């Protein structure tokens, strides 16, 4: 395996980590105003992801930084081409991050309500826009011979991308509800479980439609190999298994399955892409791939060493935080951290 392929895998892993982890806290953020009827309930919901969301978000920043270092042309074309969606993602992440920290620091109900809706909007915006960006990578966008995106904003809002946005956002809400089911108690737990139960069928249907459509829209049929078939199948099995555990009332396993579903959906996108990183709809020769978008051998080798040392360390201490906060968050007002 070449270093270029290895780096494609690293970046796939970073984005997968991001969508699995931040996926449920986006879901929790979207559900916040609807599941939390009282202020205490809303605080309880926030506290389920309180210690984690920031660390989860770093996966996106690390993925962005790794793309910059390993595939500068990918970073440059993608970020400048998808300018407005990424700007809106940034605005979402900004107001959301501040809202978590600020919302409980004042008693005023209006203050809290505004920040709660900031968490909602700040979770929903990236949950919609990031799938739009990723689905366009495989669908193909107008990239010219100079590696420049020339499609404009509305070209990105094609039906396939909107379907991806719908499917992934729903999946994140489902994923977030599954997380809340195992992290809350009493009334909140009941409501979260009700969301999981009532959305399951819808999520399965939309995901299946999305996967089938992606086989039609993307050029994957001309370049079939093992992984582009295996990953969607595993994803489908995971979401079906979540239904099985749902019926047995084992929500811890439901959550495990939603983690796997999200992971395989993201991995499917990357399997469809490989060895391209951005498909040009104008001319296949103008697509960006792991060779023409990459950094030098020296840089890739250096980054490989750094990543192999530090990524396991990150996994270890982030895993530890989930262990520290493994218990359910009590809805008892006196015990809540603000």
């Amino acid at each position, binding site marked *: 395996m070449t270093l270029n392929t290895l780096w494609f895998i690293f970046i796939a892993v970073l984005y997968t980590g991001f969508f699995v982890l931040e996926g449920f806290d986006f879901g929790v953020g979207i559900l916040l105003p609807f599941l939390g009827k009282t202020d205490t309930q809303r605080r309880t919901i926030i*506290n389920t992801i*309180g*210690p*984690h969301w*920031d*660390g989860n*978000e770093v996966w996106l*920043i*690390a993925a*962005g*930084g*790794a793309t*910059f*270092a*390993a595939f*500068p*042309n990918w*970073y*440059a*074309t993608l*970020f*400048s*081409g998808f*300018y*407005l969606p990424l700007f809106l993602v*940034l*605005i979402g*992440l*900004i*107001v959301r991050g*501040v809202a978590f920290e*600020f919302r409980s*620091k004042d008693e005023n109900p209006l203050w809290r309500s505004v920040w709660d809706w900031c968490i909602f909007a700040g979770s929903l915006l990236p949950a919609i826009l990031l799938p739009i960006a990723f689905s366009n990578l495989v669908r193909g966008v107008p990239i010219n011979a100079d590696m420049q995106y020339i499609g404009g*904003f509305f070209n990105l809002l094609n039906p396939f991308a909107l379907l991806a946005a719908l499917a992934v956002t729903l999946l994140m809400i489902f994923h977030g509800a599954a997380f809340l089911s195992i992290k809350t*108690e009493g009334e909140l737990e009941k409501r979260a479980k009700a969301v999981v139960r009532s959305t399951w069928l819808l999520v399965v249907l939309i995901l299946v439609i999305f996967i089938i459509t992606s086989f039609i829209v993307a050029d994957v049929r001309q370049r079939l190999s093992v992984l582009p078939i295996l990953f969607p199948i595993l994803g489908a099995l995971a979401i079906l298994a979540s239904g099985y555990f749902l019926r047995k009332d*084992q*929500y*811890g*396993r439901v*959550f*495990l399955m939603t983690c796997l579903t999200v992971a395989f959906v993201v991995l499917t996108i990357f399997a469809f892409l490989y060895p391209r990183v951005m498909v040009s709809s104008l001319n296949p020769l103008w697509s960006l791939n792991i060779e023409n978008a990459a*950094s*030098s051998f*020296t*840089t890739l080798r250096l980054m490989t060493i750094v990543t192999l040392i*530090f990524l396991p360390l*990150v996994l270890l*201490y*982030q895993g530890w*935080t989930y262990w*520290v*906060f493994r*218990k*359910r968050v*009590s809805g008892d*007002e006196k*015990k*809540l*951290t*603000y």
Partner: protein
Amino acid sequence: MNVLLLARLQFAITIIYHFFFVPLTLGLSLMVAVFESIYVATGKEKYKRLTKFWGKLFLINFAIGVVTGIVQEFQFGMSWSEYSRFVGDIFGVPLAIEALLAFFLESTFLGIWIFGWERISKGLHLATIWLVVVGSYISAMWILIANAFMQHPVGYTIEDGRAVLTDFYAVITNYPIYSHFPHVLSAGLVTASFFMLGVSAYHLLKHNETEIFRISFRLASAVGLVATIAVGLFGHTQGQELLDTQPMKLASLEALYDTENPASLSILTIGNPVTHEVLLDWRVPGLLSFMEYNRFTGEVQGILPLQQLYEQKYGPGDYVPPPYILYWSFRTMVGAGLLMILISLVALIIELKNLYAKVPWFLKLLPFAVALPYIANTTGWILTEVGRFPWVVYELLKLPASVSVALGGGEILTSLIGFILVYGLLITATVYLMFKFAKAGPTLASESPAEFNPSLVTPPEGQ
């Protein structure tokens, strides 16, 4: 619509805004860690209250620093895609390493620190804040390594029109790092000290929580004095380095139009920024040579000969960074710095001799002095970065060749207006909360049920 101009404006606004919060994060995290260390060592409750009080203010500041930092990570690709293509092979590396080594560390352990008070042992909890401190310092180091490449590119070769890494060791030991990194770290401590002095003075005047705020005042005045002097010394080193590496920046910040030996230091120079015609020029002979060479002779090159030299080397164009911006940024920064040395010295004397009751006017001034480090940080940053003009990467890549090709004027105008609106609202909320918690004192900070937490009733299934 001028995309380049808008992209520059957006970058300037977002980075200055971001750097408004970074120094306080760097400095205050260390102070909070010191208080918590004393608490763990002595078990005295007052140090826990100190930790929680300053910790609360630290968190408000940290949140906005983090979210505005994400913008920078994305903005290189969004608005400066051609720059990113040109330097990605080198510049992307410290950015990726920063995320991997520093951001994960900071964000993960800060999460535990906030929510883990009653959940993990005291020693472990203390370790988490120290890891946050280490994380933010590692972060500062890597971003300054990246910046050093823009100021003074090393360890690369040009292949197919882009810079390619040849010597990573040269990149991470690039000369500006040795002066910039300690300069920024001490600036962080200065910011935290003045922040602490201002808030403590406010409470001491009201005889509110005197014990708590005497301790804060003592730490802040001592650290403040050492750190303000350190900032000045490392800044002085940077000034001397300019002589060899960025003579145009030096000439512009001194408004020195002709080469001089011995070179004079400007007291007040007023000129036409476009024609470079000097209207008024009061200078002290030999003083600039002294600053640069530690003796009263030595040549310092002027703007006009340097402009000619650059035109010969790099073709026609404007190679003069706006002298009025550099000149006044430099003087504002140095002025604020000198004033802060004086203030922290007086503050330390007041604390050591217990003169609080005798000089209420000084205590009344201190809350206003909190503005000084912010003024110095901002002007210092402007000086360093605007002084690179017209180069994005010094003597290698110019501004027009860096901006995104795919970007339309409408897009960047939209985002610029969006950032200004959102940032404007956020600074309002931040300042409001800062004032609220700073004024309320330690009781509010520890009361708002900061005590943990998610009580452990039943373990979730599957575990």
